[in-house]
């Protein structure tokens, strides 16, 4: 028991209150690795993609990657996979911290929740004892309160908690699942699915580390890779010192820093809210790492008003900052802390407010709808904090924001003002300024997202090599490689940030060392391709059709109005047919029978 390539699955039937166990091993593991891949395969096999994501037929899967809980650098990640309520696509959300490793240590590599409990419950795992317990007293509590209470109850301060806040309970469509208080399986509304099942939390304290792998072989590789991560300028210097907010000035200087709901690509007050400002103003207390992480990009921050917590990360700071036109770092950080406390995805929360601000300023939202809340003007510090709280509790106008920008803008008759793809809000890079990244947005299997294929890396940051962001040639192929490699990393259980210093061969080397598998690099990348195609197949069967592979009209009809990219549009429509072809899909965007057969998906 405990071999990393033989997954122990804990299945919790919430309707019946039954807990059963099973093992997954052999070909399925070779084909899907673990984490995102294996959990997506399970979801696809076990549910009808057409079901209501917030109904009892949906399943919620917490999955370790194949190296989660081992000595692999950053090997503490876990993935939450389900059908997402925001997009209707397959939803998978990744998180760091320490919960994933503890889950693995406990011998429960994958936890599946199915059905629906008739009253609030939480799953308690202490050593070999697994119980579903009454969570009535926890319902309504914040993420921080819930975490403290459960650690107290289980009687071990080293226990780890993953839970939802009020936002998940109230099924805010972009509610997150939070672990270790501040780490988030943030996007796609996985927290709403947990809330819909009446599951408040999982608390785990393993008795011993049930993680068996080829340690001697793997340690040699770990040693080499840790050195690579420490010596790399990005993972060894930039990220520890400035965190992900190192990007504010870079993206703004390149003219693709979305401002005021993507109406502009530069924010004149970036220096007030940047990663550098967080250090220079003295708010940053220390950096912080997740399990097994030599990078330590986490921000331990204390504000002058005494509030302290983790963050903001780049995307979170941008969503409440530039995208809402707000230059008050205190308010931005406070809104971020609130998201962690209430269990909200920071990107969708901030950008839904930004969308509401544009709707308000253009007269589509009337003052009376705000129920005495502050005016929704761009630049309002008061508004971002106030409406974040209202959203988390679904009170007043917050109830409308809780459905995300797409449904809000649609209700106001102006859906094009929602800066989203497949109803999920776009992150902090204007797709007009980076053509490959725009293609990644439209082809992401979980809607608008930067971490499905982070083309910013080659197009702007020059890692692993510098590509011209406006060049179209070669971009479909690059995007595909990034998407497939990311699916691999998300299934290995390592952090995506390792890919700034490591490449495909390095992931192959460490996976083979720990498992004695015999992947070639091509085999491993094909695992990623298989995962990507399976997710696409799920989405097509769910009714999310290729015609939704599109950006909001703003990006093809309005050029960037200012900055170094002034006058530029997104050309993703030219890239999309080439992408379909390079994927081996049909011209209409459906997966060809040949490709399905090649990947063993038919």
């Amino acid at each position, binding site marked *: 028991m405990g071999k990393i390539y033989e997954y122990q699955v804990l299945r919790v039937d919430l309707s019946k209150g039954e807990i059963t166990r099973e093992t997954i091993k052999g070909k399925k593991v070779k084909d899907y690795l673990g984490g995102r891949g294996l959990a997506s395969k399970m979801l696809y096999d076990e549910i009808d993609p057409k079901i209501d994501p917030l109904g009892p037929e949906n399943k919620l899967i917490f999955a370790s990657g194949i190296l989660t809980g081992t000595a692999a650098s950053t090997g503490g990640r876990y993935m939450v996979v389900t059908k997402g309520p925001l997009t209707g696509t397959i939803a998978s959300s990744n998180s760091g911290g320490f919960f994933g490793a503890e889950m693995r240590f406990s011998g429960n590599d994958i936890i599946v929740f199915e059905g629906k409990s008739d009253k609030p419950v939480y799953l308690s795992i202490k050593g070999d004892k697994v119980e579903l317990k009454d969570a009535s007293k926890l319902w309504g509590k914040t993420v921080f309160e819930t975490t403290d209470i459960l650690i107290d109850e289980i009687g071990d301060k080293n226990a780890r908690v993953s839970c939802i806040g009020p936002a998940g309970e109230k099924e805010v469509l972009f509610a997150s699942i939070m672990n270790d208080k501040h780490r988030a399986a943030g996007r796609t509304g996985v927290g709403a699915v947990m809330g819909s099942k009446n599951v408040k939390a999982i608390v785990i304290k393993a008795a011993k580390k049930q993680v068996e792998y080829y340690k001697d072989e793997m340690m040699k590789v770990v040693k080499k890779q840790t050195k690579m991560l420490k010596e*790399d*300028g*990005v993972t060894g*210097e*930039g*990220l520890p*010192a*400035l*965190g*992900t*907010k*190192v*990007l504010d*000035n*870079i993206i703004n*200087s*390149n*003219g693709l820093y979305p401002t005021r709901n993507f109406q502009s690509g530069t924010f004149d007050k970036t220096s007030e809210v*940047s*990663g*550098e400002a967080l*250090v*220079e103003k003295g708010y940053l207390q220390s950096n912080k790492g997740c399990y097994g992480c030599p990078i330590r*990009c986490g921000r331990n921050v204390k504000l002058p008003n005494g509030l302290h917590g983790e963050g903001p*990360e*780049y*995307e979170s700071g941008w969503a409440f900052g530039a995208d809402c036109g707000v230059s008050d770092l205190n308010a931005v950080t406070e809104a971020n802390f609130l998201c962690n406390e209430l269990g909200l995805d920071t990107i969708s929360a901030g950008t839904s407010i930004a969308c509401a601000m544009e709707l308000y300023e253009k007269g589509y939202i009337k003052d009376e709808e705000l129920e005495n809340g502050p005016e929704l003007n761009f630049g309002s510090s008061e508004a971002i904090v106030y409406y974040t709280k209202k959203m988390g509790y679904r009170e007043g106008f917050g109830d409308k924001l809780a459905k995300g920008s797409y449904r809000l803008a649609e209700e106001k008759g102006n859906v094009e003002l929602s800066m989203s793809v497949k109803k999920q809000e776009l992150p902090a890079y204007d797709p007009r300024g980076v053509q490959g990244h725009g293609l990644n947005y439209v082809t992401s299997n979980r809607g608008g997202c*930067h*971490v499905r294929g*982070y083309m*910013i*890396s080659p197009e*702007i*940051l*020059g*890692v*692993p*090599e*510098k590509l*011209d962001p406006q060049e179209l040639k070669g971009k479909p192929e690059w995007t595909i490689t990034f998407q497939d490699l990311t699916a691999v990393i998300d299934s290995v259980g390592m952090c*995506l*940030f390792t890919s*700034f210093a490591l490449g495909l061969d390095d992931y192959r080397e460490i996976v083979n060392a720990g498992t004695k598998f015999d992947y070639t690099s091509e085999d491993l990348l094909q695992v990623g391709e298989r995962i990507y195609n399976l997710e696409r197949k799920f989405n097509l069967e769910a009714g999310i059709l290729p015609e939704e592979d599109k950006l909001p009209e703003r990006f093809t009809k309005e050029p960037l109005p200012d*900055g*170094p*990219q002034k006058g530029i549009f997104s050309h993703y429509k030219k890239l999309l047919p080439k992408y379909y072809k390079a994927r081996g899909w049909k011209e209409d965007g459906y997966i060809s029978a040949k490709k399905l057969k090649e990947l063993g998906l038919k």
Partner: protein
Amino acid sequence: MSVKVKFYSLFKLNLKSSGIEYEINSPITASDLIKKLDEDFNGYFSEKLLEAGTITPGSIILINGQNIFHIDRLNSKINDGDTVTLFPPSAGG
């Protein structure tokens, strides 16, 4: 008129400076600018931005927001009134 050079990220934190301005009489290249910076900052910038005579992978040098990698690399021209922005290798997301 002059050339404005902006430092960000670790450059800004390590040098405790947000940048410098140079008066130029005629256009200079990015290479020339790094030499000027080296004189004022003890060779710091060529050490950080250059590797074997070319731009260190991941370093970002922008002239008015355009990456010199796609202009004429270290031979890219800097004119009076231009803004040059410098970043060490950085990433996040």
